[in-house]
C-alpha cells in the first residue's frame, strides 16, 4: 500500500472516530446531564419522575423530621416561591440543618417527593454551592429569595 493511501485511511479513521465521539458525547449529555431546578421551576415547568436533577434551595425551618429507622430524614426545600418535599437516607453533611442552603441530587418519585441520593451542603463557612450564589435566607420568615 502506498504511503499516501495509508495516510488517507488513517485520517478517515481518525475523522470517523472524532465524529462518533462527538455524537456519543451529544447523546450522553442529553440523557445524563442533570439540570438544576429551584422549587419554583419544578412547580412551573414540571419534572418527570425518575429523571435525575439537582434541586437547590433552603431547608425550611421546622420541616426537618427523622424517620423511625434513624437514617432517613424528611424535609422541605423552598426558594421562597414554592416548596417541595424531599427525603434522604444516609449521613447528611454536618452543615445540613434547617435554614441552611442545600443542593440535593436525585429524582422525584411518583408521589412528588424528591428522593435525594446525595446532599451537598456548605462544606465550611466559606463554601457555598454555586447554584445558591446570590440568594439570601431570611431568618424570621424562613424564606429564601434572590438578592436585590
Amino acid at each position, binding site marked *: 500500500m502506498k504511503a499516501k493511501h*495509508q495516510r488517507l485511511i488513517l485520517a478517515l479513521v481518525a475523522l470517523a472516530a472524532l465524529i462518533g*465521539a462527538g455524537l*456519543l458525547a451529544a447523546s450522553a449529555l442529553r440523557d*445524563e*446531564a442533570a439540570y438544576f431546578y429551584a422549587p419554583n421551576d419544578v412547580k412551573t415547568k414540571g419534572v418527570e419522575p425518575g429523571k435525575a436533577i439537582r434541586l437547590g434551595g433552603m431547608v425550611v425551618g421546622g420541616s426537618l423530621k427523622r424517620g423511625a429507622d*434513624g437514617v432517613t430524614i424528611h424535609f422541605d426545600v423552598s426558594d421562597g416561591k414554592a416548596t417541595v418535599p424531599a427525603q434522604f437516607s444516609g*449521613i447528611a453533611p454536618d452543615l445540613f440543618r434547617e435554614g441552611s442552603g442545600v443542593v440535593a441530587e436525585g429524582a422525584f418519585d411518583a408521589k412528588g417527593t424528591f428522593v435525594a441520593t446525595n446532599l451537598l451542603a456548605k462544606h*465550611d463557612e466559606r463554601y457555598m454551592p454555586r447554584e445558591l450564589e446570590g440568594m439570601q435566607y431570611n431568618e424570621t420568615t424562613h424564606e429564601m429569595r434572590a438578592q436585590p
Partner: protein
Amino acid sequence: MIAEAGLAALWLAGALALLQLALVTLGLAGSKSELLGAVRSVAVSQGVLTGLAFLLLILLFLRSDMSVMLVVTNSHSMKPWLYKFAGTWGNHEGSMLLWVTVMGLAGSAVALFERALKRETHMATLGAQAAISLGFYVFLLFSSNPFARIDPPPPDGQGLNPLLQDPGLAFHPPTLYLGYVGLSVAFSFAVGALLTRQVDAAFARAMRPWVLAAWVMLTLGIVAGSYWAYYELGWGGWWFWDPVENASLMPWLAATALLHSVTVLATRDALRAWTVMLAVIAFSMSMVGTFLVRSGILTSVHAFAVDPERGSFILALLAIYIGGAFALFGWRIGAVREGAPFELVSRETMLVVNNLLLSVILGLVLIGTLYPLLTEAFGLKVSVGAPYFDRIAGPIALLLLIAMAAGPLTRWRRDRFGLVAGRMLVPGIVALVTLALVVALAWGRIGILPLLGLVVAIGVGVGSLAPLWKRNLRRTPLFTWGMVIAHLGCAVSLGGMASDSAFTVEKLVAARPGDTIETADWTLYFDKIMPIAGDNWTALQADMTASRGGGKAIAIHPQSRFFASPPTTTTEAALMTRWNGQLYVVLGQETDDGRWQIRIWWKPFVTFIWLGGIMIALGGVLALIGRERRGWLLKWRARAAA
C-alpha cells in the same frame, strides 16, 4: 526580612527568565551565537532562585510568621508542624509558587542534564521554557504575591481547611505538580524543535526521558489524590468526576498518548507532527486545568480563592501560550519532513489506535467538564457527573485496554493479522472463560460495565504478560519489564474498579452502643462513643470491633472530628485492609433517641485500584532506567576518564 528576601528572589528569578529569553532570541535569531554560552547558567540560577523563594515561604509557615498575609489566612500557630509545612502549598499563592518552582527547577534540569539534544534545539527549548515561566512569574508577582505583609499582624491565623489537614497534603500536591508542570518541558521541547525544524528520531529519544519522568510523577500524584479523597471524604468513592479531578486526568491522558507516540518517533521515526502536537496539548491541558481550578469558575476544595481577576489573567496566559504554540505548529509543521511509512497491521498502527482512543477519551472528558460552563452562558444550570463520564469513558477505556494487550504482541513495521490473532489466543480464551464464569455466577446481579470490566481486566492481565513468554527473563531488557508491569498495572487497576462497583456491600444503620451489626461476612460490635482530643481538634470516636466469619475481633475507631479554626467537622473513616478488600466504616450523627448513624462498606479488591496505579508508575520508572542507563554509564565513564 525573610518575606522580603523571598520576594526579591522571585523578582530576580523573573528578571533572569526575561534575560534567558532575550539571550536565546538574540543568539538564535540575531546570530549572536556567543550569547548562547550564558543561557545554561542563567537557567540554573533561575531555578535556584525559585527554589530559594519556595524554601523561604516554607520557613515563614513553619515559624507561623503572622505578619505575612498568606500565613494569617491559611495557617494557625496551634497546627501540627507537618501541616504548617505542607500548608505552604495548601492555598492559591503557595501552590502557584510551587508551580513556578517546579518550572524553574525543570528548566535547570534541562540546562544541566540534557546532552542528547542538538545545541540549537536545546537553546530554543530553554528559551521556550523561560517564556512560559515568565508569564507565571508575572502572574505570581502582580496578582498572587505569596509574600505580601499584613499590618498590624493579628494575634493568630485563621487556620487551614481541615479537609486538607492530612498527611496526603504533604505528598499529593508536590508529586502532582512535578508531573503537571514537568510536562512544560515536553511543551518547550516541541516549541524548540519546531523553531529549529529538527523533529526526528534523535529529538524523540532526547525528549522521552523527560516525558516519562513527568508522567510517572503525574500518575503517582493522581493515585495519591484518589486514595486521599477516598478515605478523607467518607463517601466510599475513589473518583468523583469532579472537574478538578478531570483537570488532572486530561493532562495524564495526553501524556500517556505522548509517551507512546514519542516511542514510535524514537524507534521508527514516524508520527513526527502528531508527537509534537501531543507534546503541546499535554501541557496545554495542565494550563487549562489550572485555569478551571484557580479561576473560581468551579467550587471545590481545590478552588482556594474565588477571584475573577486571577481567572482572566490565567485565561490570557492560556491564550498566549496555547495559541502561540499552535500558530507556530501550523506555520512550521509543513517544514517537517514526512516520517517513515508503516503497514496497516503493525505496532505503529496499534500505537496510533492507542493515541486515537486516548484522544477521544480526552475530548469527551473535556466536553463534559466544559459543558456546564457553556450552558451557564445561556442561563441554564447543568451539572455533568458520573453517569455521563461512566457511560462514555467506560466502553472506550475497555477498547483501549484490549488494544493495549494486542499492541506489544504486534511487530514493528509489518505484521500479519492472523499471526497477531494467534498470539492473542490464550488471553482471548482466558477472557472467554472468565466471561462464562461471571455470567454463570453473577448474571443479573451486576451491571454490564462492571461485568465487561472484570472480563477485560483478567483477559488483558494475562495478555499483558504475553510479551514475556518464551523469553529468557534475565535477558529481557528493563524497559520491556517496565512496559509489561505498567500494562499489567492497568489491568489490576481496572479489576479493582470493576470489583468495587460490582461486589461492594453497603449498609446504613442507626445503632445504640452495645448493638451488633452484621454485613457481608463481617460482624461489628458497637461498644461505646468516647470524646477524644487531638492537637487542634476534638472528636467523638466510636469504639467498635470487627470480626470476619467468627474470627478474631479487631478494634476500629471511626471518628467525627471538630476543628475550631476554621470551624469545621470532618469524618475520619475507619479502614481495615485485607488482602481481598477493605472494610470502610463511617460514624454519622446522633439521632434524637440516642442512636448513632453508622455506614459500612465491604469493598472487595478495592485496593487493587491504587496498587495498579503504583504498578503503572513503577513500570514508567523501570522504562526510564532501562532506556537511559547506558547513556548515564557512558557519561559517568567519560567524566571519570577526564
